[in-house]
């Protein structure tokens, strides 16, 4: 069938600069570049380029550039090119359209409508270059109050397990299979260096990475891939995955093409088979079932680790979160509308869920109203782009944030949204061994640790500017936020005042 799909990108090659070294041909995984033997010339074809910039950045003579094709449709606000082209794709395939990464639609990004405060005159800002500045955070359930022995001053209160992180930024769940082992190793080593945590995702933990267990969160999802006693024992935190921001209500999908020999062993499934997690956990049809799984995992790990529960941010997140805390979750994770994925139905990714800022604000408020905010740490995920977003999330009430896309960008990802194809030219979201070696864990870990270090330093500058020297004094401190260009209802839900008031 001839495709009616117009090409998306045009590759511009400067013939003056091109030395026909064929690096672009080797680097491209989408067959955009080819060698024309007849003319003895390296050429590019439109139509297959996904705009991943791999060739542009690896061309030794900077001969290449990629631009959006200037093919205009007649203006139509309703029938925008994306919708036309989605219909063309479905007419030609008859399937569910898959995509990767997070929601790229123009839903309001509330981080961009919130600004932070700083000290002037009436209280001094604190200089993080000269004064201590604390980002240390403990994840886990806290008791309501502390009892101290009157005579000995010894602590009498028993504590649930606590996990210390030195920067309130962790690497979110990205499964082995969705991403490569080298990516996992990079994340694990960077988390270890930065004193934070990385998350295995639902695809198990490769034996090579057990040594980083102290900095690891292991996930238990509906498919139960790779879940066994050693796996649970290895980790600092066990996370139950109920939902994911990119595809609320839908289970993880790993196409058989990505289930390599190593992936198959780690996931404990046959090589080459699709790994389709059921949409719900089939032992959790209600909140009391969740409580059972939480406590089963606590029993299995002998009450030595916090148990986290992760949900996608949906309409009644506040009530659900309250139930999760009451069901025994020591950490709750909210994954918002812009949360990413290795593969999800595009229609779900683009239309289901709510912005994480709103979910966070309402969950934090609700847990406080019910007097149970201390019983669980609140972690958010989904679209955190920089340390400014992190600071705003903490001020809205988060204990820490997860980053996924930001970490992958640090490794080279250019958000071409082809994760589901398994052809990632950057070697990130693939298990093709010829591609995964494009991520060198030494370099990957360095880049990720650098990113966390940069954000830590920036967070300290932000805190110091506010006259605060410990992160806990920003946590839930919405007085340090002001809104710009928001309606009264939005401000009310965020619990934030308008700038100028």
């Amino acid at each position: 069938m001839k495709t009616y799909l117009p090409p998306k990108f045009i590759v511009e090659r400067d013939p003056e600069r091109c030395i026909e070294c064929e690096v672009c041909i080797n680097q491209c995984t989408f067959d955009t570049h080819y060698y024309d033997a007849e003319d003895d010339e390296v050429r590019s074809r439109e139509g297959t380029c996904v705009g991943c910039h791999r060739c542009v950045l690896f061309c030794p003579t900077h001969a290449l550039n990629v631009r959006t094709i200037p093919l205009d449709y007649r203006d139509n606000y309703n029938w925008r090119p994306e919708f036309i082209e989605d219909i063309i794709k479905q007419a030609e395939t008859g399937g569910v359209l898959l995509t990767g990464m997070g929601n790229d639609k123009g839903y309001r990004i509330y981080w961009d409508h919130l600004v932070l405060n700083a000290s002037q005159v009436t209280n001094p800002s604190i200089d993080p270059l000269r004064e201590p500045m604390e980002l240390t955070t403990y994840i886990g359930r806290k008791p309501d109050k502390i009892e101290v022995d009157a005579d000995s001053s010894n602590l009498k209160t028993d504590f649930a397990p606590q996990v210390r992180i030195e920067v309130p930024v962790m690497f979110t769940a990205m499964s082995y299979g969705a991403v490569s082992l080298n990516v996992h190793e990079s994340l694990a080593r960077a988390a270890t260096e930065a004193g934070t945590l990385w998350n295995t995702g639902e695809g198990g933990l490769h034996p090579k990475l057990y040594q980083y267990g102290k900095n690891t969160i292991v996930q238990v999802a509906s498919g139960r891939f790779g879940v066994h006693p050693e796996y649970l024992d290895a980790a600092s935190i066990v996370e139950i995955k109920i939902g994911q921001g990119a595809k609320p209500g839908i289970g993880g999908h790993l196409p058989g093409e990505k289930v390599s020999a190593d992936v198959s062993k780690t996931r404990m499934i046959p090589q080459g088979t699709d790994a389709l997690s059921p949409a719900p956990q089939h032992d959790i049809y209600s909140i009391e079932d969740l409580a059972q799984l939480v406590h089963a995992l606590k029993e299995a790990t002998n009450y030595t680790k916090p148990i986290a529960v992760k949900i996608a941010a949906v309409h009644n997140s506040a009530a659900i979160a309250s139930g999760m805390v009451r069901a025994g979750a020591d950490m709750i994770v909210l994954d918002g509308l812009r949360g990413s994925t290795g593969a999800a139905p595009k229609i779900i990714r683009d239309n289901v869920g709510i912005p994480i800022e709103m979910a966070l604000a309402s969950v934090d408020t609700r847990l406080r109203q019910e007097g149970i905010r201390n019983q669980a740490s609140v972690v958010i995920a989904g679209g955190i782009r920089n340390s400014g977003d992190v600071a705003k999330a903490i001020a809205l009430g988060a204990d820490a944030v997860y980053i996924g896309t930001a970490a992958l960008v640090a490794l080279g990802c250019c958000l071409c949204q082809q994760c589901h194809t398994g052809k990632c030219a950057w070697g990130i979201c693939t298990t093709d061994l010829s591609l995964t070696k494009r991520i060198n864990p030494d370099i990957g870990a360095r880049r990720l640790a650098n990113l966390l270090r940069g954000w830590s330093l920036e967070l300290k500058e932000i805190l110091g500017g506010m006259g605060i020297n410990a992160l806990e004094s920003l946590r839930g401190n919405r007085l340090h936020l002001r809104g710009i260009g928001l309606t009264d209802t939005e401000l009310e839900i965020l619990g934030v005042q308008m700038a100028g008031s």
Partner: protein
Amino acid sequence: MKELSKINNPYSEGKVIDACSIFGAMDTSGKRFAGDGVIKAIANMHFRGNGLGGGFAIYGLYPEYREHYAFHIMYLSKEAKLEVESFLEQRFRVEVSEEVPTRHTPAIVNPPLVWRYFINVDAQKYDFKSDDDYVVDRVMEINTGIKDSFVFSSGKNMGVFKGVGYPEELAEYFCIEQYEGYLWTAHGRFPTNTPGWWGGAHPFNILDWTVIHNGEISSYGTNRRYLEGFGYHCTMQTDTEVVAYAIDLLIRRHNLPIEIAARILAPPFWDDIERRPVREQKLLRALRQVYGSLLLNGPFTVVIAHQGEMIGLTDRIRLRPLTVGTKGSMLYLSSEESAIRLVCPDLERAWIPMGGEPIVGSLERPLVPREVAIAGEPHPDVN
């Protein structure tokens, strides 16, 4: 329902911002003394205030009524007085009701009426846990419910005198020279975003706890939201109120000793905690994990007092001043050392405590006179 926040914070700022002078003097032997020295000392720090608030708290003030709650109540109208008095009659046994003596002075214009009442509580009758809880709730009712009235203080054998003006002017107005007590605190205020309101001056009081405060707490939003979870409503929108409620929660409701409470409000850094002995590490870590939201971050000095005890504390990196002086059984706390030296030139010791280090003067542990004073070395009997 009257909105205290509208009165105390007419521009509806995030909170009221102010700065100040503070002074505290305590005879740890329990001997009562007159306030002339305290007035002189706080007047010496005139320039730290701007005339929009001053006040005094005196402990050991009413020994003849030591078992009664002493209510100092301010009225802006005759109707308010009638309403409050009928409220008190219905809910308490009022033993004595009298006007607080004042004298006309040129500096104090449009003063409100201030009355005091000595009151007994019959709490069983109201099915309450304790007399104190009952009194706190009634004070909140008056402060938030009855127009043109405000309770300055509500503790036993103590009282607060405060208003709009410089502290030395208010001392003259309230005839402070006639009173004696074993513990005095005094405050001169420099608010930057509120017009003077008599109720907004320091000391801030609930039961027999008073707080005088210099500073701006940058963690106010976090502190306030945490306290709201325990039913405290910060109607005044001041840092001082947050300090008072935090102390009430930690000491009265969670039964923690004052030294531990100080470690919560101004905790050591995580790195410092890691260097302590294991037993101490465990406690300090737990305090920060559980009460992190009560860390008072940003510059402050507070002097907190209640029956038999006075505590001085600065933020953990000491962004506001506090000087301690001792002589014999006397303990002085002040924003400036000069104010102490003015009233006690022959101090045995004077030093600046470390940030976050609580200075506690207590009747239970009276100070012992020392012969030699070495600058910069803390007094071993004061912790």
